[in-house]
């Protein structure tokens, strides 16, 4: 496994999510259909204020930390490329840095978020959270055991 391939996989995932969402929105506009099934996820904010986000499964994927991180890195670099003042440079670099941190956080929590959204959409909220935790434990325990078996870091 190479880091560049892992990154390519994540970027592909982000691009495909965006593409699927665009296709679905086109479907809604051109075929006059309405969202048949939506998912509402409760997100607890910084000050313990509970906010909920409603959307179908791809819209929930778009709100994952990983997606937001990749988006922020992209926007940050875009701002640096289109410089008009010194503050743009600082702002762009800061944004890219925050985006990178968010992407790393997103990668760590990817198994949890992914399984939580999929199970919440198809089964229910509580199986979603429990399944997410189980997936997280399974993935990291799997990595540890695999590196013990292979005899080197993965």
């Amino acid at each position, binding site marked *: 496994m190479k880091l560049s391939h892992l990154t390519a*996989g994540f970027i592909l995932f982000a691009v495909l999510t965006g593409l699927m969402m665009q296709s679905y929105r086109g479907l809604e506009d051109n075929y006059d259909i309405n969202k048949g099934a939506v998912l509402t996820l409760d997100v607890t904010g910084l000050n313990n204020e509970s906010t909920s986000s409603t959307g179908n499964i791809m819209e929930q994927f778009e709100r994952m930390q990983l997606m937001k991180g990749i988006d922020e890195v992209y926007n940050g670099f875009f701002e640096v490329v289109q410089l008009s003042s010194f503050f743009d440079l600082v702002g762009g670099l800061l944004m890219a840095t925050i985006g990178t941190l968010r992407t790393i956080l997103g990668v760590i929590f990817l198994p949890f978020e992914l399984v939580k959204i999929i199970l919440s959409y198809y089964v229910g909220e509580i199986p979603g959270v429990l399944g997410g935790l189980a997936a997280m434990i399974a993935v990291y325990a799997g990595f540890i055991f695999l590196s013990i078996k292979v005899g080197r870091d993965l």
Partner: protein
Amino acid sequence: MPGLVHNATNVTLQQLMSVGNSSGNMAEFFISVNNTIFNGYLWFILLWLIWVIMVIVSQKVKDQPLNNAMYGGATVTVLSFFIRGVTMLVNGVRQGLLSDHQMWIFPVLTMLIALIVYATKDN
């Protein structure tokens, strides 16, 4: 009577009449068959079958299970988006060939397979 099929839907004459009474419109006929006889699962199962057939056929050309599953999934995803668009209004309720829950399974699985394929490449 115990048998292989449990809880089978009994199709009544009235239901068959409503299926047949489709005013010559092919889409209306397909939607009626899907919802009246198959409880809305016919096209969902057909898409799964297409995916499996595509993987089996492409496996014979080149032995790469995950890649073939990804390519088959991509094709079925495009098909599912088209099929989701075919709907009609029945007594104020919109019925279609595929529901949202059924449609999203194909892109989600394809994306997960693509993520695994690209993230675990060796060279």
